[in-house]
């Protein structure tokens, strides 16, 4: 139980001494991705090996005193390099072993831990030169990153409050409680230029000011962990990898606006995040960092955790509030804004996970430091979830204003399987597509908005030349149509109408009039919808129409899909030069569209072909081709 600032500092010193006494620290990634690949078994094996060598093991439990140098094994949060998992990091050198299998554990232990020799075959090998890279920081994927929100992810044990405190955890809280007034905290955040990382990009300090000035005894802080954008997973990573940082961020917000209670709303699809957060809240309560008279001050704060139940619209502020109140998660018109009248009618601040995770660093290092990172109107860093057809998928936190090219090619290693870059979809279903001509576009709030896209939550899905942009637009429209809550007509009927038009276009029934109708409808939905879901739902359609119009035209005019994705627009042919006449396709064709004599080249009757694709998937000689 920490009762004062001095006790927190003493606790930190003690935790640091222990950590510094560790000669080698084994950190096994226990993020969702690595766990799926068996990292917990790898961790258990390390633990078992350590137990067999008690002279090496060091116990981090603070109750126990010890004096010798030793080795310690812990789990860590997500490193962000999920594709290379399971990942094992060994400190102090920061060596990163990739794709570690259970059978590799003994070798790492014997070679690296006991004999101080690297296990070269498990190191990351450079994509181009194929030479091994020893430390995590030297890997191109990490080299250009600048980590604030993700600073501790992969470096500390998310289940250990000692570890967090040793890494300056709760120092910002102690600073605001004893050195700053709430107004000074708000001023600091305003000066830092921090803008909401959940999508809207509204200045965080300004939002706080509204709630600070709102009248009412009871105020709430809500952490929005309903990360519903398909293709984004940075919030999951922070909640799983550094849950105390989220808690500390909420307390800073609470102190600034005068709230004494907070809710963390986590989507149901993130069970591990829920588990880690619950554990973190419980240990913070036990340590006296949550509760009443925190660290001996007159500040009280408690945190509740609410699990979502699968509704994308609940990421919208007013819908999220309705969901916490136990109702259908439907948005309501604003104003009044939640900062004035939110949860149970009380002034409520809703901040995204990544926004909150930036706060401790801003308070500790100052607004000036933070605003020196990034570009003038978009300060600090942004975490992007790099996915799709890129060589290195994962989470990257970079200064705002890095160009698309630097992220996709320098950090992401370009496209996989030598594919040619065609587009990125940024910001999920609310965002838009960017093309080759945008490769030099700096990624910040304003530049992206001018290009018709948005930072959104930071999902960055890379697409190669074999992706059909019309089909991608249809995919997103299907998503928002399904997730539209049905309250307002433009969104409910408009998204359905757009989906129907897109379906018609990809199946070959579209006309040129459909394109203008689609555009018109998109603008109506954008203007007329009640909440952010509907207002941004047409973005993927509008940006693909703007940048890939010729592809749409090919679908409606020539009834062709240039990327070869839309099945109904493909013609299947048999290449007579490679067909062996085995007759397999003829036998399997459900429409009897294939004919030919045995051992002679076969052919497909286009009139009868239903384009089911059976022949192409079964032909052993690759003789069936599409246009």
């Amino acid at each position, binding site marked *: 139980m920490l009762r004062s600032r001095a006790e927190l500092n003493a606790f930190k010193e003690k935790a640091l001494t222990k950590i510094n006494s560790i000669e080698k620290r084994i950190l096994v990634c226990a993020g969702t*991705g690595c766990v*799926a690949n068996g990292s917990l078994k790898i961790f258990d094996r390390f633990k078992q090996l350590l137990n067999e060598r008690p002279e090496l093991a060091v116990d981090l439990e603070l109750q126990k005193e010890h004096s010798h140098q030793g080795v310690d094994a812990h789990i860590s949060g997500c490193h962000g*390099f999920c594709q290379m998992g399971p990942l094992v990091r060994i400190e102090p050198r920061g060596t990163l072993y990739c794709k570690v299998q259970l059978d590799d554990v003994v070798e790492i232990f014997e070679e690296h831990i006991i004999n101080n020799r690297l296990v070269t075959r498990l190191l990351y090998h450079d994509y181009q030169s194929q030479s091994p890279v020893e430390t995590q920081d030297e890997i191109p994927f990490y080299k250009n990153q600048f980590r604030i929100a993700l600073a501790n992810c992969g470096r500390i044990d998310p289940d250990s409050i000692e570890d967090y405190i040793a890494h300056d955890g709760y120092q910002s809280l102690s600073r605001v409680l004893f050195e700053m007034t709430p107004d000074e905290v708000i001023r600091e955040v305003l000066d830092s230029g921090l803008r909401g990382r959940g999508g809207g990009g509204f200045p965080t300090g300004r939002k706080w000011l509204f709630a600070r000035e709102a009248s009412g005894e009871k105020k709430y802080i809500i952490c929005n962990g309903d990360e519903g954008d*398909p293709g984004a997973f940075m919030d999951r990573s922070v909640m799983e990898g550094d849950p105390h940082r989220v808690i500390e961020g909420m307390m800073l917000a609470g102190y600034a606006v005068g709230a004494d209670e907070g809710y963390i709303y986590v989507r149901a699809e993130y069970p591990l995040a829920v588990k880690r957060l619950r554990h973190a809240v419980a240990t913070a309560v036990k340590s006296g960092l949550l509760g009443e008279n925190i660290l001996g001050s007159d500040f009280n704060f408690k945190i509740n955790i609410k699990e979502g*139940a*699968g509704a994308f619209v609940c990421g919208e502020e007013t819908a999220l509030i309705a969901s916490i109140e136990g109702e259908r998660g439907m948005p309501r018109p604003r104003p009044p804004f939640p900062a004035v009248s939110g949860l149970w009618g009380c002034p409520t601040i809703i901040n995204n996970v990544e926004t909150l995770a930036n706060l401790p660093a801003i308070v500790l290092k100052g607004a000036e430091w933070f605003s020196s990172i990034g570009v003038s109107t978009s300060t600090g860093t942004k975490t992007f979830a790099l996915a799709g057809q890129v060589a290195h998928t994962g989470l990257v936190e970079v200064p705002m204003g890095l160009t698309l090219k630097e992220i996709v090619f320098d950090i992401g290693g370009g496209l996989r399987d030598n594919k040619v870059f065609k587009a990125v979809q940024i910001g999920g279903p609310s965002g838009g597509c960017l093309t080759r001509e945008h490769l030099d576009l700096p990624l910040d709030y304003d530049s992206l908005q001018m290009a018709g896209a948005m930072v959104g939550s930071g999902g960055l899905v890379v697409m190669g030349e074999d992706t059909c942009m019309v089909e991608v637009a249809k995919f997103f429209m299907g998503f928002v149509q399904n997730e539209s809550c049905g309250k307002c007509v433009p969104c409910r009927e408009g998204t359905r109408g757009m989906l129907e038009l897109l379906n018609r276009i990809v199946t070959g029934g579209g006309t040129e009039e459909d394109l203008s109708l689609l555009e018109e409808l998109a603008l109506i939905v954008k203007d007329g919808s009640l909440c952010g879901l509907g207002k941004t739902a047409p973005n993927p359609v509008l940006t693909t129409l703007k940048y890939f119009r010729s592809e749409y035209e090919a679908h409606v005019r020539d009834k062709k899909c240039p990327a070869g994705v839309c099945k109904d627009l493909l013609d299947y042919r048999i290449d007579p030069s490679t067909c062996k006449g085995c007759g397999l396709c003829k036998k399997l064709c459900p429409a009897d569209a294939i004919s030919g004599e045995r051992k002679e080249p076969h052919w497909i009757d286009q009139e009868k072909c239903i384009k089911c694709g059976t022949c192409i998937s079964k032909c052993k000689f690759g003789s069936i081709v599409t246009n």
Partner: protein
Amino acid sequence: MDRKFERLQEIIESHEGRVSHLIAILQEVQEEYRYLPEEVLTYVATAMDISPATVYGVATFYSQFSLVPRGKYIVRVCDGTACHVRGSEPIHQALRESLELASGQTTTSDMQFTVETVSCLGACGLAPVVVINGDEVHGQTTKEAIVKAVKKIVSQEQQEENKNSSEMGCCQNA
């Protein structure tokens, strides 16, 4: 009280019947019954003193809730953007084919498997991803691999069933 509702009452009481906990209550109830039967929804409404329409409204709003029985194994194919561009749809179709699901059908007639898609599981680095019963994650999977994994469960279940029926046979003989 009907014994069937005893556990239900326990769940409601553990939340002190608070209306703001309705979603959490329904989540726990669904875990118990694997879906939300109509009489259960009515019971929840009466016990919490709210209208059945309110409970029904919440139960139908969130995609996590099911009002029809679901299979013992819930196979969720992630169809987030990253998984989609790496071919999640063919994987979904292959699963449906291997379990012989007719168009519009999501649960096998023997109530063993339910196949659904989910918007995004947040494991985009491992795309394409399929999750079986919430914790068995298959990352960077293929049609062949996932069909194999499901077939393995099918044969395990059959073995289990054979074992049970042979045990029952023994008892009858005795």
